[in-house]
């Protein structure tokens, strides 16, 4: 089986990308106009790829299920984007960003891809500033930075708590320029329901117009899957309601290997769930950990009293609080990586020290930061006899300027004022490091079919560091695919337009229509959400923050059972030739019900702990994740064979030539 060739270029790590670019094909501008490229999804990866490819001269068709490309869920990313600019002079470098990312990913990512990511990171900031992204600045007019978890330098660029919004609107504006020139044809409210493979190559997609219900055929010389992650397999996550795995799963079923599906990021700072009615969870940016201190009551009886409302957190004296991250990890403190912070919160709550009515929450406290900033600001303003109240006022204003929108969001949801009482937070599913397997060129195991951004697996290993997702999405779209796609398309200049009346298109369309009719024909008793919630519960309880062989085996059987019931008893009203949100959801949940099973199988197979994947069987005496490099230093790439848990495992061995493998420590 030769397909798992990562195509990593030879040579020293810091020369690979340059050398590779020299070696790959370039398509001449006149020929680019003869080549069609389909981009599925318009988040950071999709929008940046669509814009750049169109600028280069390719004919691009871009698809999104939302009513505008601007609404893709990258818009909700809050905290920032990393780049090795070393503007702060704190000894940052391409190598340090590369090292931090590989270590942060617990040594389960592909070295060459991560180095390239670090290498192009600085360009992203230049590019975004040039296209008018209003990053935060210091009084001198230069760009400001902040810190994120798992690193010891300040390399994160940000725009308040709305960095994703500003970056996506930047990429959207670049797309708009190309749409205005007719170089991108944009399809809003369209969902890709299959990829069409002709003679072993991706040659187009089948899409559904979500307004009219019409099934459409679109031919192309290459198909880019930029459809994001699959966190919604847990039902509750910080993903958008419509975020789904469908595009990635459909190409998997047509031959693209799916890599490391069990690598999920459970983000430590989310607003805790409040009840059964809950439809999604909301993130509070990791950037808050720059200034917030995380704690729970040190005594169980205090935790109990807080849960029943007899005691307020602000009543607890300093010595009665357990700042457990500062206690356990003195060198990184509140800025440990996400997987570590999440497990530590779960450990405290499981031990009975959790707050909120449910006992599933810890505090994120800004009191110390408000006082500290207040003192600083008073001095800057020349107020030397500031009252305590004045200092608080000034301090709250500083916090407001940094995190205002996040505090407002919190207050609206929880109905408590986080300037006056500590925030409550709890881990929630946020990001999926796993995804479609790609080689160094970002091509999947289907020739001509690529995967970019969160949809692929390559850069974050088993745990993603904060502010790296935006970096990867834009790196893939702006600076990687425009080069690497030429290598494949160079051979396509004589192919001519792809006809959509071939037997392959006929068959794919027939299958899509067949599935839609089948779903509508069931007319059972329960809504799609009913099944989705059941799936989510199994995933969270048995494939969530802590996993073991018994639970995973049960999960596989339970998911199969839910899938069976779904196909017998789901009820979808309406028809397929109109706007039908329930039908859309049903298709997505049908795919989640298959992915969930493979996800559990992957977690079962990987009998080690690494990053966000924590197997209870594999931990240190102190309860930290324990890797097993001897047996599991590989990428698990799954080949679809019909039954998800019967998929065939292919291994891409990971080689670490430039970084020494060590037990990760943040102590």
């Amino acid at each position, binding site marked *: 089986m030769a397909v798992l060739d990562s195509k990593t270029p030879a040579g020293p790590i810091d020369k690979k990308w340059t050398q590779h670019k020299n070696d790959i094909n370039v398509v001449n501008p006149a020929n680019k106009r003869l080549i069609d490229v389909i981009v599925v999804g318009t988040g950071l990866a999709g929008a940046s790829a669509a814009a750049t490819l169109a600028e280069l001269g390719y004919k691009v068709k871009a698809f999104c299920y939302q009513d505008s490309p601007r609404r893709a869920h990258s818009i909700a990313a809050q905290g920032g984007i990393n780049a090795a*600019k070393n503007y702060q002079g704190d000894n940052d470098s391409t190598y340090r960003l590369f090292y931090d990312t590989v270590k942060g990913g617990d040594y389960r990512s592909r070295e060459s891809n991560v180095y390239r990511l670090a290498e192009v990171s600085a360009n992203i900031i*230049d590019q975004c500033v*040039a296209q008018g992204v209003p990053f935060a600045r210091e009084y001198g007019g230069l760009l400001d930075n902040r810190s994120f978890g798992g690193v010891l330098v300040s390399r994160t660029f940000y725009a308040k708590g709305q960095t994703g919004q500003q970056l996506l609107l930047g990429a959207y504006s670049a797309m708009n320029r190309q749409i205005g020139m007719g170089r991108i044809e944009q399809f809003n409210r369209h969902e890709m329901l299959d990829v069409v493979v002709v003679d072993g190559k991706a040659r187009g997609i089948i899409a559904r117009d979500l307004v009219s219900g019409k099934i459409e055929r679109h031919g192309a010389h290459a198909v880019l899957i930029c459809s994001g992650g699959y966190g919604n397999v847990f039902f509750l996550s910080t993903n*958008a309601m419509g975020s789904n795995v469908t595009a990635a799963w459909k190409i998997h079923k047509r031959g693209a290997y799916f890599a490391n599906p069990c690598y999920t990021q459970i983000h430590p700072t989310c607003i805790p769930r409040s009840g059964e009615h*809950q439809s*999604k969870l909301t993130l509070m940016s990791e950037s808050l950990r720059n200034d917030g201190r995380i704690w729970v009551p040190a005594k169980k009886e205090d935790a109990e009293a807080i849960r029943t409302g007899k005691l307020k957190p602000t009543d607890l004296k300093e010595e009665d609080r357990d700042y457990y991250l500062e206690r356990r990890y003195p060198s990184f403190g509140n800025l440990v990586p996400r997987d570590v912070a999440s497990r530590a919160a779960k450990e405290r709550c499981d031990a009975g020290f959790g707050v909120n009515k449910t006992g599933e929450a810890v505090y994120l406290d800004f009191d110390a930061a408000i006082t500290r900033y207040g003192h600083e600001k008073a001095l800057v303003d020349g107020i030397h006899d500031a009252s305590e109240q004045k200092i608080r006022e000034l301090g709250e204003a500083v916090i407001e300027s940094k995190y205002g929108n996040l505090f407002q969001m919190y207050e609206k949801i929880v109905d408590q004022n986080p300037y006056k009482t500590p925030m409550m937070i709890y881990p929630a599913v946020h990001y999926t490091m796993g995804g479609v397997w790609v080689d160094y060129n970002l091509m999947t195991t289907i020739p001509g079919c690529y995967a970019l951004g969160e949809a692929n697996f390559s850069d974050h290993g088993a745990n993603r560091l904060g502010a790296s997702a935006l970096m990867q999405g834009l790196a893939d779209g702006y600076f990687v695919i425009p080069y690497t796609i030429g290598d494949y398309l160079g051979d396509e200049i004589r192919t001519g337009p792809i006809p959509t009346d071939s037997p392959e298109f006929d068959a794919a369309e027939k299958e899509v229509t067949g599935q839609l009719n089948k779903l509508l024909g069931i007319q059972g008793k329960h809504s799609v959400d009913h099944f989705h919630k059941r799936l989510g519960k199994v995933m969270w309880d048995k494939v969530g923050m802590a996993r073991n062989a018994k639970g995973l085996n049960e999960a596989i059987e339970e998911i199969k059972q839910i899938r069976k019931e779904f196909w017998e008893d789901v009820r979808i009203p309406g028809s397929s030739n109109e*706007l039908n949100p329930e039908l859309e959801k049903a298709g997505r949940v049908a795919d989640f019900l298959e992915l969930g099973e493979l996800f559990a199988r992957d977690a079962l197979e990987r009998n080690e702990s690494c990053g966000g994947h924590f197997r209870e069987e594999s931990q240190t005496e102190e309860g930290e994740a324990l890797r097993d490099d001897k047996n599991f230093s590989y990428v698990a790439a799954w080949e679809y064979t019909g039954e998800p848990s019967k998929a065939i495992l292919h291994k891409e061995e990971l080689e670490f030539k430039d970084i020494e493998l060590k037990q990760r420590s943040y102590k």
Partner: protein
Amino acid sequence: MDLNLKVWRQKNATEKGALKDYAIKEVSPDSSFLEMLDLLNDQLIESGEDPVAFDHDCREGICGSCSLYVNGEAHGPSRAITTCQLHMRSFKDGDTIYIEPFRAKAFPVIKDLVVDRSSFDRIQQAGGFISVNTSGNTQDANALPIPKADADKAFDAATCIGCGACVATCKNASAMLFVSAKVSQFSLLPQGKVEAKSRALNMVHQMDLEGFGNCTNTGACEVECPKGISLENIARLNREFLGATITEG
């Protein structure tokens, strides 16, 4: 809490719509407004009726998908939030709630509460960008210092989520606040100044073509804007547009 809902139902763009009554029981005050609609839809589906279609996605107030006119106000009674951030604790047990789509000539209804806002995209395509290729071969990001005050103002304008509440609220269905936010963002930054004139002219021209009304400075848009986009931006757009008309027009 128990509520009486009056919801706009409309099968598609061509058929006539009407308000329909629904009683809904045991709504948690901690649930969001859209979660209340989820509950209604669950009940409708299980009883064999057609669920209510409405736009939504991120449910955290940033994607701009959700819309809704709730009791005669865009995004409901609270200020500075979107409908998805509105919580049921803002209502009382026994309340009657009117739920309608955003209404404007340039936002035709697609189904029930879902409207077509693609006119906003077309305005952006007419000039809402800086013409720089995404090659990465630009100057260093810190080569050009930008006064913090200008950068902050540009950011404030850039936080527009394109939801259309300004249009839905305006008695003229004007899109001036939306257009001015993008024009301001770029005209405040040195990178955007180069094309400031053509941008203002092109975007306003497209806005007129789409059938949005004129601005009469009533200021309702600013009040209902979930992101607090300031009327100052409209003043800036007027300045840019007038200047451009004189020199280029």
